[in-house]
């Protein structure tokens, strides 16, 4: 979701310049954006009054709809609230979590599942963000095998005991079936839809697929919402905004 204010690249390609290690909720805690994240947490807490949702998966229709940015900011805020949170990068094909935490992608999940390292070695702690995380680890060609591995199931069961929340960052639904395999491990899925990105048909298709798999979709989060787009919302902004 983070983008640089201006760049030639953006002008030409209309592409978003991603900067994953910029946690707006941390660096701009009073902003309206942070407030919006807080609202999501409140909604999540309402959905989870019985505290039976612990392993939450995040996915979207297409890549770059803001999953990693969303998950990292959410986990930071959860951590701030004193929750014990661990973040797992299950996007084994295009891992990004290491970029959020500004660390190399090594000693991660695949390494642990391959038995190269212990769980303690796999779990990193970010003092900066205040939560634990596990990188994707060394790239593997047999992604599905990894995701179906019994050891991964056991790992999540284990983490479930230790942490309040186990957040899973996963690939988008449309391109690969990874998210569907992962959904078997999760208690619920939060589906991310970026404004004006994926065609409606694709989003419907993705959600339909998830539903057909019997996935418990906890809710949708609408990201990359352009405040200036005029699709409602605008008036609130001036009220909250303190440093525009």
């Amino acid at each position, binding site marked *: *979701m*983070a*983008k*640089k*204010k201006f760049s030639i690249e953006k*002008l030409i390609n209309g592409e978003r310049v991603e*900067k994953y290690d*910029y946690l*707006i909720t941390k*660096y*701009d805690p009073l*902003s*309206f*954006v942070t407030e*919006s*994240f807080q*609202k*999501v947490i409140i*909604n*999540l807490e309402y*959905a989870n009054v019985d505290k039976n949702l612990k392993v939450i998966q995040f996915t979207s229709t297409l890549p770059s709809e*803001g999953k990693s940015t*969303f998950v990292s900011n959410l986990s930071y805020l959860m951590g701030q609230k004193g929750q014990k949170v661990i973040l797992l990068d299950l996007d084994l094909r295009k891992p990004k979590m290491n970029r959020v935490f500004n660390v190399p992608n090594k000693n991660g999940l695949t390494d642990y599942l391959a038995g190269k390292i212990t769980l303690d070695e796999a779990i990193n702690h970010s003092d900066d963000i205040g939560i634990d995380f596990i990188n994707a680890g060394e790239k593997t060609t047999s992604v599905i095998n990894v995701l179906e591995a019994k050891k991964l199931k056991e790992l999540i069961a284990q983490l479930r005991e230790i942490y309040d929340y186990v957040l899973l960052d996963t690939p988008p639904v449309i391109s690969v079936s990874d998210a569907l395999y992962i959904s078997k491990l999760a208690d619920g899925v*939060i*589906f991310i*839809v970026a*404004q*004006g*990105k*994926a*065609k*409606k*048909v694709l*989003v*419907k298709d993705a*959600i*339909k697929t998830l*539903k057909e798999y019997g996935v418990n*979709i*906890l*809710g*949708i*989060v*609408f*990201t*990359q*919402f*352009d*405040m*200036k*787009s*005029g*699709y*409602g*919302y605008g008036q609130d*902004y001036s009220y909250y905004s303190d440093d525009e």
Partner: protein
Amino acid sequence: MYEQNLEPENEISLLDLYVILRRNIVLILAFTTLIAMIAAAYAFFVVDETYASNADVMVQVQTDPNIDGSYDYNTAQKLLATIVEFMSKDVVLDEVIRDLDLSYTTTQLKNNLTVTSSNTSFFINIKYVDKDPRLAKEIVDSVINQSILVANGNDAFSTLKNKITRTSFADMGVYEAPNKPLYVAIGIILGGIVGVGFVFIKELMNNSYRTKEQLEQAFDIQVMGTIPEFEVKEDF
């Protein structure tokens, strides 16, 4: 059922149009600048500059010496029209080409030659447009000279004999085309139109979710929040 066929967003309001345009202002401006620049480059560097030169002749109309100040209006008009046509006929233009030793064909000459008369006077204006201002002047003068020579010297044109009188000499050609500011202005307007058109087509093709309400309507799933797009602070 999570799917609903009711999609009220098919309507588009004036505000929506404004929003679409404002959101894509960079694109529109880019198109405008690009096309204006192409137009300017074309006007300044591609199109040959042309210069126009012109001069007049007067047609002598026969008056009846018995009736003071009288003449046959019909005949006069026909004579005027005939001379106008005559001046751009091959019989004259061939002589011009020979006179000035031009490499042009008569068709080329005709394309750049404009001979006009008015209904209210006996003057005929001869205008020639050429890349070379001096040549434009020479051609105009030659057209007049050769017209007079042919009219007076060739018996086939006895009706035109002594009817054409030169009333002015051509000046060095003055700048005629291209109208550079006009090209640029048209480029800007065209660029704006193309830009706006492109943006609307782009918006039309982009059938994606724009509002939280659209999402809520499409799926029977709670929308837990709306996260605005944000900008990385400069000092970060």
